[in-house]
């Protein structure tokens, strides 16, 4: 069915607003996440070369980590050897937030999933959402009140 067009007032000239934000300029090459910027800056992969709980992450480092590094050139991935401790992934975000995920006794595929989740996330604190729609301009045609006459 044809949509219902309701013209209001005269036909205004369409003026193209000034486009673009200058946030793109000077940003590191590669893709962007929050308004054009990836939020995960650094990923530390901590593992042990002896312990059995690090078996999965050692396999991950052989199988999936090179491809993960290539897919995310903007991300700084660092290997760290920690003996006598369980392995974990540490993510450092642009808003100075840090997220640690313990990956002991996990399969390489699960560790890849967790690493991808760290990369996909913004560094914001994980709290229950108040609203699913965040806006600064809630009304375009004017907020309705009981006094509005149509």
């Amino acid at each position, binding site marked *: 069915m044809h949509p219902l067009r309701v013209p209001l007032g005269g036909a205004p000239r369409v003026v193209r607003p000034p486009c*673009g*934000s200058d946030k793109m300029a000077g940003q590191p090459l590669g893709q962007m996440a929050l308004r054009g910027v990836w939020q995960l800056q650094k990923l530390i992969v901590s593992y042990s070369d002896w312990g059995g709980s690090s078996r999965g992450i050692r396999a991950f480092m052989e199988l999936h980590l090179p491809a993960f590094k290539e897919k995310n050139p903007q991300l700084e991935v660092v290997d760290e050897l920690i003996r006598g401790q369980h392995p974990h992934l540490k993510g450092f975000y642009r808003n100075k937030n840090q997220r640690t995920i313990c990956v002991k006794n996990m399969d390489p595929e699960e560790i890849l999933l967790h690493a991808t989740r760290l990369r996909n996330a913004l560094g914001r604190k994980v709290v229950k959402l108040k609203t699913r*729609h965040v806006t600064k301009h809630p009304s375009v045609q004017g907020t309705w009140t009981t006094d509005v006459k149509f």
Partner: protein
Amino acid sequence: MANRRCLHTLSRRAWTLFSTNTSIPSLRTLLSLPIQPNKPIASQFGRGVTTRCPHPRYFSSNSESEDVSEDDDDEDYDEEMDDSGEDESVGNSSASGLKREYSPEEREAEAAAIGYKVVGPLERSDRVFKPYEAVFAVVQIGSHQFKVSNGDCIFTERLKFCEVNEKLILNKVLLIGSSTQTIIGRPIVPEAAVHAVVEEHALDAKVIIFKKKRRKNYRRTKGHRQELTKLRITDIQGVEKPEKIVTAKPTKAAEKKPEKVPVTA
């Protein structure tokens, strides 16, 4: 009912025997055969034939209930077997379905069914983050509808076929409006498009599902984290956008703003 069934079989077999002109068998052999009486035949044989079927339990007063209950038990057992089998198959299919490889056509089709279309990755040269325009649209993603404007953020259910930092076009637009014009879709506006960029795929905070039945020693705790996608709306197309008034500082109020006339439903 069972008695009638017995008689029915008996009389039918008897009828076949008589029609073939064999020697009339003894009553015992007659009765041992499965019978299927028609009503007139039953009435003929009813007087002479004792209603004794091979399965004596059919004669008990509780025969019907027993039969029914046994049949029901059998049916339930079969149903349970079937259900468990189906559940296993469904479980297996869902477990394998999570890692299912989608062909590009399937991806597009499923994405279009939900209401969005992946355009491509965001390039560095794209200038998509524009300042605010006084245009809004009501867009549907999956089963949820949102009233969006330029620069808004939306949290939807996890969109499967797009990565972070990819451009999307949401094509299920139900209503578009600006300060001068409103277009109502029936049910969607066909030439409208809402552009968005995927900002993040993240997990919501954990909610704990706690079940308890008091005084029954039953308590269950389950944690759940919903997977969400955050979209940032960059552009709304398909409606006449209002004229942007650029006034130089010394001159004031030269142009009249177009009047806001809301639409009657």
